[in-house]
């Protein structure tokens, strides 16, 4: 550390021959460029780092989406799926989602996909195949699986019915009620119920046989029932949206892989 050993420090201003200002400026410009290029690369990489490290709950993606990693790569972030969805179930991610910036997702509790469009307008709109054209029927979709996450909150399990609208008068969501209108979804807030036993998750499931109410194994003789989800569940989230209890008893467990039909890979 003493000045005697400090011989290789030829960069000390007093030691080196005077460089011209031009060369000095050129060197500074070069270093600045490397710094800026490095910084921008780091910003771009931050999205990847966040994706790899942050264990955020995965988003529910629109019907037909490829497995999560392939989906993030194949999506061109244009939002055409958002535009064609007649019930406006699809939203676009923002920069806080990192790599998911501009990538579509669905918040089932607020507005689930009920296949109002008779399946997969979003898939037809997708220009890159991120929503796979292999799927043309709602039964082939695999976004996730419904799961009874709060059994104690389930009204049917308590043997209770439901009176009134499913989610209150202020709920903005819509749902297709085939008995009212085959094509146009109706506001959920305008449809009151009077049920002896709550079966809203089963009643409105758009996939036949995906969910049913069954007697409780531990209390088979009573009126209490529990929702049982079958393998044919596509994870559209209508049950999650329509569940009247708070906290919500049934939710979609998002699938990040295995979303495509057998024999096809992302």
């Amino acid at each position, binding site marked *: 550390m003493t000045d005697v050993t400090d011989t290789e420090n030829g960069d000390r201003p007093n030691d080196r021959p005077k460089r011209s200002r031009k060369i000095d400026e050129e060197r500074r*410009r*070069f270093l*600045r*460029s490397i710094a*800026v*290029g490095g910084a*921008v*690369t780091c*910003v*771009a*990489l931050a*999205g*990847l780092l966040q*994706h790899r490290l942050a264990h955020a709950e995965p988003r529910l993606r629109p019907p037909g989406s490829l497995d999560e*990693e*392939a989906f*993030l*790569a*194949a999506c*061109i*972030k*244009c*939002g*055409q799926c*958002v*535009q*064609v969805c007649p019930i406006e179930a699809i*939203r*676009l*991610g*923002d*920069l*806080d989602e*990192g*790599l998911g*910036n*501009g990538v579509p997702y669905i918040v089932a509790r607020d507005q689930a996909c009920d296949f109002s469009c008779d399946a997969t307008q979003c898939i037809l*709109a997708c*220009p*890159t*195949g991120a929503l796979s*054209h292999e799927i043309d029927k709602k039964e082939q979709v695999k976004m996730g699986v419904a799961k009874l996450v709060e059994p104690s909150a389930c009204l049917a399990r308590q043997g209770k019915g439901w009176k009134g609208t499913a989610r209150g008068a202020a709920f903005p969501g819509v749902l297709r009620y085939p008995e009212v209108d085959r094509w146009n979804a109706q506001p959920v807030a305008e449809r009151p119920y009077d049920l002896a036993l709550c079966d809203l998750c089963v009643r409105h499931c758009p996939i036949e046989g995906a969910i049913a109410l069954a007697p409780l194994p531990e209390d088979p003789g009573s009126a209490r029932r529990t929702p049982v989800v079958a393998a044919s569940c596509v994870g559209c989230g209508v049950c999650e949206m329509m569940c009247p209890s708070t906290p919500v008893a049934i939710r979609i467990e998002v699938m990040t892989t295995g979303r495509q039909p057998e024999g096809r890979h992302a």
Partner: protein
Amino acid sequence: MRPGFVGRTIDGLGLLFGREPVKPTPEEMTEEARAMHAFKKTPEERKRRKTGIFAEFDDPKHSQKWRIRRWLSIFVVNGIFVASYWTDLQLVEGALTASRVLGFHFADLNSSLQLMLAHKHVVLNLLIGITTVLLIYLAFGGRSFCSWVCPYHPLSEIAEMAHRKLVEKRWVKDHPLDRRLRTVMFGVFALLAFVSGFTLFETISPVGILSRFFTYGTAFALIWIGVLLAIEVFWSRRMWCRYLCPIGLTYGMVGTVTPVRVVHDVTHCFHEGKCRDVCLVPHVLDMTKLGYSSEVRTPIGPDCTRCGMCLDVCPTGALRFDIKGITRAETPAE
């Protein structure tokens, strides 16, 4: 820049990828150009130019014709996306990254490139979209995307005005970067997409961010736009467009051979450099320096964004838009 199609194209590509312009030797110039340069050095010519330049600087007001047209174009193109969504017109669906225009697929070339490198798979609809957009920009001049469509461009232009005001007051200083950086970043983003399997550039692309914000209201990402603009106001003039944006380089490559370009006519030129002063990519205007043009009429190279800013400030009409094969009927504004 050397004369002739081949020399000009090669030199133009060099400039696009970040080489500094080189003054042509007298041997490289055409005979007409040499004669013109000699003529320009005669005392009468010098005097005439001097008078002209003094008149020009006495009255610094200049035309805004091309800026108005350009901003209108950006407003209309981006506005159609928004209007068509909110009124459910379905004229143009999507965002600038990919869209459907009256049912026809359009796909941004750089977004598509990133996607193909990351996903390593391409569907027909995307190929159709790429081809359509490629043909449009082959016809209308490559980087004309930058100044006639890109929504970041006008924001950056306003930031540039602020930056120049601050520089004038000596509150800030411009920090130019090495122009080869853009080529490096193009490679970096392409490599990142290929290796990581994600379109990392799309996450921070100002074009995508702004286009989606207008239509879908995804406002959080505007933070990134704010950061870029702040840097451009206080630190480095038009940093993103000049030194970083791979979209600009992509469209620049497309515009290597295109009929729509700005042409410099040395006959009328005062060589006072106002055009280089306002230009986003002043290296393409190197031939406007006295004795630097190798031809009498030189088409400007592929890095030019066809913004027309130089046409607006040029007092003699030495710089004009030209569509190859079609001569403009308009006479130079004196």
